[in-house]
């Protein structure tokens, strides 16, 4: 695992798990790997993984089932909200940077549409 070294590992683990949940690599309602398995996968210690999972439990993104382990919510609304939150935080940064270049909203939208088209063409 490659981590950004000045950001707490548990926050970075949360981000990775969020992405797996939103992209449905981890299906809604399915069981998460055990703490130990996640620790090995993330090269982190179990306390760190537990801290990430504790916060995700408080956010109702996962829930523990007694004696079985942790399960991802099957509530699509919660997953939708999570996706919106991540989209927003990704766009926040871009928007702020472009705004700092004194671009107007229309210019920002135009350049983004152009950019997406360009990316699509590159892929074909």
């Amino acid at each position, binding site marked *: 695992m490659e981590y950004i*070294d000045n950001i707490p590992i548990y926050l970075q683990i949360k981000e990775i798990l969020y992405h797996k949940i939103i992209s449905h690599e981890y299906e809604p309602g399915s069981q998460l790997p055990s703490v130990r398995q996640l620790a090995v996968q*993330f*090269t982190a*210690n179990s306390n*760190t993984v537990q801290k990430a999972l504790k916060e995700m439990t408080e956010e109702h993104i996962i829930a523990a089932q007694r004696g079985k382990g942790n399960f991802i919510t099957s509530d699509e609304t919660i997953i939708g909200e999570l996706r919106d939150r991540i989209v927003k935080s990704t766009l926040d940064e871009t928007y702020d940077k472009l705004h700092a270049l004194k671009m107007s909203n229309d210019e920002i939208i135009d350049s983004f549409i152009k950019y997406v088209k360009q990316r699509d063409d590159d892929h074909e």
Partner: protein
Amino acid sequence: MSKILEIDNLSYRKNSKTILNHINLSLDSGKIIGLLGENGSGKTTLMRLIAGVNASSEKNITVNGMTQKSKIKSQVSLSDYLDGFARSSRIDDIVRFYRNAYSDFSDEKYKEISEYLNLDGSKRLASLSTGTRGKLVIALALSRETKLYLLDEPLNGIDSMSRKKIISSIIRWKTDDSTIIISDHYVTEIASLLDDIVIIKDQTVYEVDSVENIQMKYHLGIEEYYEKVYEGGLAR
């Protein structure tokens, strides 16, 4: 959280040279803790003192609530670099020695770890690469069922594939109620494993803090923080 280790004002001199000076330390159980300091800073001496291998007459070290040296020894597994074994010893012979020497040595655990690390019991010590020898050291240390593990520079001089396997076996076989202290002078690779760090500088404990606090407080990675501490460029 209960305390696994408490050190109260420990100093240690050898041949009239001060190695450690007024060490105070109090560590919670269940964690993985990095013991950092440059070569010669006294990390190994401190570990040997905690394990009761180096003689210290005073009773200022408490491990899991115990101060009596003979009791501490059964609570602590210190990695041993096997220099006391003949070069012709086979791995199996060394394992047999461990089984006899330590009543807490778990054959089952050794079997699992040695299989994971591909250790071949019929190999002789002299024929092992540095990486394989490092794996053996870790497998033996982790196979004792104790509360406190002291791993003295387990990655020193070891190739990157072996380092990864060693790190992974530490994660896999650490029980929730045990504590592991890993010493190193090179931090990056173990940084993601650590809950807390202890920095030894100028013969004493310079800092004890959680990795998370350091990241939040200084916006620095552990490696960078540690380097700054040693350069003396960090205002406290």
